[in-house]
């Protein structure tokens, strides 16, 4: 029994710690600012960090294969601007949304193809993707484009009340993040695809020798990240009802930080998306504490995220060194 508990702690220790840190930050915030104890604040985390959650889910899978995707912020900017421009042009949102998802998947797939077949480092290829997507967004429009579409307005402004909790609500767009989280959990825990992702992350060479479809899986992972970023872009544009090339600057860093804080090792093969959820929630809690404080300035978010990333890496290295020994 103790042995088994020990094993679970060793295997999911980083995730448990991330969860504990989230609870701690949230609890401290609640003690400092009683208004933070309201349940709505918790749901606000999902509302405000909806696109960060989506992006981080895709990022987790990419990082699990030992890669990295820096293009996510650019894809969000591109998707938001392109959808806003198309909607302004009078296109139906029922066409625009699938089109944008297709765009994200295609962009991610192309990046994955470049990484896999041209043997370009993921870091550089997705960097080019970031430049390309953001630049394209600026070519579409140099200024912010507002969205006046009725369907988008409805998605953005209809609150869904949470049952049993008074005065707590979310928006329809907020649901996309948790749904994708469930999809990702299914993918990485219960499918062959997920196991291949872990195998590639642990050792690509041996995964290849085992006859696993390495090339296909890697391209699919980047395409999945593109899908998540596109969904993130749609959520972003719904929540702000606008599209702009400057949206989500630095989102790639926030999401990498969230993934790392959530216990996923950047070397690949270790971690899971549930930890990433806690990473995102920690990010959201820090932001909301800063908002409740009012006098603390926004740059403390960055410093806080940086410090937490460092701590998370420290914890990871201790845990994984011990795991290797045992």
């Amino acid at each position, binding site marked *: 029994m103790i042995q088994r508990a020990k094993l679970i702690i060793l295997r999911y220790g980083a995730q448990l710690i991330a969860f504990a840190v989230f609870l701690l930050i949230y609890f401290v915030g609640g003690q400092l600012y009683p208004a933070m104890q309201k349940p709505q604040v918790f749901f606000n985390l999902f509302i405000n960090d909806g696109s960060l959650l989506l992006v981080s889910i895709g990022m987790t899978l990419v990082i699990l294969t030992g890669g990295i995707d820096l293009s996510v912020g650019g894809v969000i900017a591109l998707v938001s601007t392109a959808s806003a421009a198309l909607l302004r042009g009078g296109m139906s949102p029922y066409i625009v949304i699938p089109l944008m998802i297709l765009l994200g998947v295609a962009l991610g797939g192309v990046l994955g193809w470049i990484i896999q077949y041209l043997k370009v480092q993921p870091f550089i290829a997705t960097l080019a993707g*970031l430049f390309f997507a953001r630049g394209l967004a600026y070519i579409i429009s140099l200024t912010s484009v507002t969205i006046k579409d009725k369907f988008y307005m409805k998605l953005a402004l209809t609150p869904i009340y949470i049952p049993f909790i008074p005065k707590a609500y979310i928006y329809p767009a907020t649901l996309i993040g948790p749904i994708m989280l469930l999809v990702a959990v299914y993918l990485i825990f219960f499918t062959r695809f997920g196991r291949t992702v872990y195998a590639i992350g642990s050792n690509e060479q041996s995964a290849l020798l085992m006859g696993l479809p390495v090339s296909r899986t890697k391209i699919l992972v980047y395409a999945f990240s593109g899908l998540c970023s596109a969904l993130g872009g749609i959520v972003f544009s719904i929540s702000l009802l606008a599209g702009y090339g400057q949206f989500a600057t630095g989102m790639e860093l926030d999401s990498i930080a969230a993934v790392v804080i959530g216990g996923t090792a950047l070397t690949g093969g270790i971690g899971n998306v549930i930890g990433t959820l806690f990473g995102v929630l920690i990010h959201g809690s820090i932001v909301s504490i800063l908002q409740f404080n009012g006098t603390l300035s926004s740059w403390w978010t960055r410093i806080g995220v940086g410090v937490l990333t460092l701590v998370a890496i420290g914890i990871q290295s201790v845990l994984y060194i011990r795991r290797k020994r045992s």
Partner: protein
Amino acid sequence: MNKKSLFKRFRESQLFWPLVAWIIILLFNAIINPKFFRIGILSDPVYGKHLYGNIIDIFNNGAPLMLVAIGMTLVIATGGIDLSVGAVIAISAAMGAVLINPVLGNTLISNAISAANTTNTPLPVIVLADLAAGTLCGLWNGFLVSRGKIQPMVATLILMVAGRGIAQLITNGQIMTIYYTPYYWFGNGFILGLPVSIYIVAVVLLLGWVLVRKTALGLFIESVGINAKSAYYSGISEKNVKLLAYMFCGFCGAIAGLLLSSYVHSADGNNNGLYYELDAILSVVLGGTLMTGGRFSLLASAIGAVVIWTFTVTVYSLGVPANALLAAKAVLVLVVILLYSDYTRRLMNRLFERRGSKHDTAS
């Protein structure tokens, strides 16, 4: 065929491809704008007579990128990467602006108070503090990588995220305007008709060259980059070599921050040196240094930076909006990626070898 012909030696050197790229971009410029190469002499009321022209501007404004690329080369040569240079630039710029401000320590720094052309801190102290701040950032990165055994990308990511926050913390979140005119000299002054920044780059390049080519350090860096473990077994202090590389990178970033804040007479924690890390990495890759580490050339990276800056200026002169430049840069990255990919390299080698073998049979 013992002696390689001069052309072949040049073709195999790291300078070849970046120079070719530069010449292509310059030729393109010359075609669309015949006045592109014109260099004139301008009399300036403050700085006296000096040269001006597109080429001079490219070198002057590209100087920070060249500096950062030089620093980044050493880091990449050890097999690492430094994502934090943009943040280091911001920190260094913020440091300079705060030290110049006569109301140091006042929590409410307003531009009205600091508008006087005075400072309590002597200029050498400001410069040294700038450089120290950058080097300290480099030391931090190097410490995390060499002693903390953290992946370089992750270790420098921390400073990349937190660094801009620190820069804003230093300037109290404001964009600080610098009114102290002697500080402008670094970015806007001239020595013998050429911008000061060019001399700064030349000095750093020379310093780097002496450091890595006239001592064994360059060899150490390359051996650590190729195989850190075997370097360690052959008695090279792999940790200290890495530490030094990151410190040098931070140092270069600090000078770049000094120059950038001097150009625009202000320090902005959010935007100083934005995307510089990406441009710098691209410069190094253009310069033919492999991202996996090993063989490197400081001069080739500096030329790579010039190529990128020339490209930027060219795109601007075509009338492309500044923000859309990113897409153009992505195309450049893609072309570079394709050029450096194994497939193209094999194709090129086959092309040249076939010619070479023909030559062999003839002789």
